[in-house]
């Protein structure tokens, strides 16, 4: 059942609540994709899958397939958006490397992150052992007051500091401009416009010829419209074209998508 994905309860540093609310906030640009720990979402989903279903009548494998399909599409789109935000230039940098070099670079970064995770674990354990150590924060109740004195300063230092703040950041290469993903709002408007003209349209046909990133964003826009109750979605079979129609009754439960 597809709602297994959208109702997925998340407890992340930057967000707490169901997965579909997270998506909505990102679509409305009220939440930075860069702030979201995607690995934690994957862990939550896998834990959800491994929980036995309370209803025995429905076959579990079928439920898993539906949920997995939707989840993979959404998480891949999220990952792509986040990666482009975090590393606007590096995508290009890595693409220029030979596969061996790129693998070496990625391995170096993964190993570095792994070491830092270990260090964090050490810090956590250390902190646990230090919980019995209480010390005073701040001055003693009856301590004499400290006075800080500052030597004479050159006012030119102030001018220099402000000039430093007025230096524009290093020029960003223009190559990533081509990689920028279009705003979701653009597709929201586009689909709404199409639906004002026609009662039903074919999603795959509408996004044909767009880049993969654009198609992913278009699909997120489609989900947003459906969530808002503006459209109904239908798909005859897995990998069949998705038909989008103006609200009314919605029967769609299949979420497998070819285009994203």
């Amino acid at each position, binding site marked *: 059942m597809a709602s297994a994905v959208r109702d997925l309860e998340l407890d992340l540093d930057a967000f707490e609540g169901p997965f579909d609310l997270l998506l909505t906030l990102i679509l409305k640009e009220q939440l930075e994709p860069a702030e979201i720990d995607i690995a934690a979402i994957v862990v939550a989903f896998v834990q959800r899958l491994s929980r036995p279903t309370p209803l025995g009548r429905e076959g579990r494998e079928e439920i898993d397939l539906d949920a997995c399909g939707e989840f993979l599409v959404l998480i891949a789109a999220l990952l792509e958006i986040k990666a482009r935000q975090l590393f606007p230039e590096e995508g290009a940098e890595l693409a220029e490397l030979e596969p061996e070099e790129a693998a070496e670079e990625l391995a170096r970064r993964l190993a570095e992150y792994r070491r830092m995770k270990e260090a964090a674990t050490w810090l956590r354990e250390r902190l646990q052992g230090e919980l019995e150590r209480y010390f*005073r*924060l701040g001055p003693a109740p*009856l301590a004499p007051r400290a006075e*800080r004195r500052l030597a004479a300063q050159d006012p030119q230092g102030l001018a220099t*500091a*402000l000039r430093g*703040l*007025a230096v524009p950041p290093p020029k960003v290469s223009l190559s990533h401009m081509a990689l920028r993903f279009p705003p979701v709002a653009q597709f929201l408007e586009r689909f709404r416009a199409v639906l004002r003209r026609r009662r039903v349209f074919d999603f795959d046909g509408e996004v044909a010829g767009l880049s993969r990133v654009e198609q992913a964003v278009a699909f997120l826009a489609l989900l947003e419209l459906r969530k808002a109750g503006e459209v109904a979605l239908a798909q005859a079979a897995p990998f069949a074209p998705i038909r989008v129609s103006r609200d009314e009754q919605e029967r769609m439960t299949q979420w497998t998508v070819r285009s994203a």
Partner: protein
Amino acid sequence: MDRPLRLISTDAIVGTPIDALARTIEALLVVASQPLSVEELSAAAGDDAERVETALGLLRERYAEGRSGIVLERVSGGYAFRAAREAAEACGRLFERPVERGLSQAALETLAIVAYMGPVSRPEIARIRGVAADSTVASLVERGLVAEAGRESAPGGAVRYRVTPLFERVFGLDTLAELPRLDDLGGEREAIRERLLAVAEARAS
């Protein structure tokens, strides 16, 4: 010499309840940043007020002036440790900070923004620097280089800050009009402000 802790370190007495309570009170007082009342001590130690008073009596003897470098003082609001009078000179030297030669980059940038663009609020300083300004502003206020100067005009507006006469003295300025000119940044306050905000926005994007 007087050994303030002799009583509790003597084997025969270690572990008697009143001494254990006295040790707990020592611990509470050395951590506290304000005087602690008998009620607070009693609640924290989980013991009754009368026994806390007894233990405090023991401690007042042990930490009496002339017996230890630590003196237990009764002040309004309760009990607190202070330094012995014989150590007053040493404590004075400890709290007398050496004259600082310069300011940190964070302090200098913040001070420059307040001097050239003040009165200015912390959110605005943070926008220009691209970094939260709270602790830096607080430390400049504590040092007397920056002071509050009313609030932004909107209801519930943020507190604004200006530089102080001490700032002018330290920087050798009779008035703020003597600040070095920044013609290369647009010269006038509004122009400089817009320029800095534009750069900050570019940096954040």
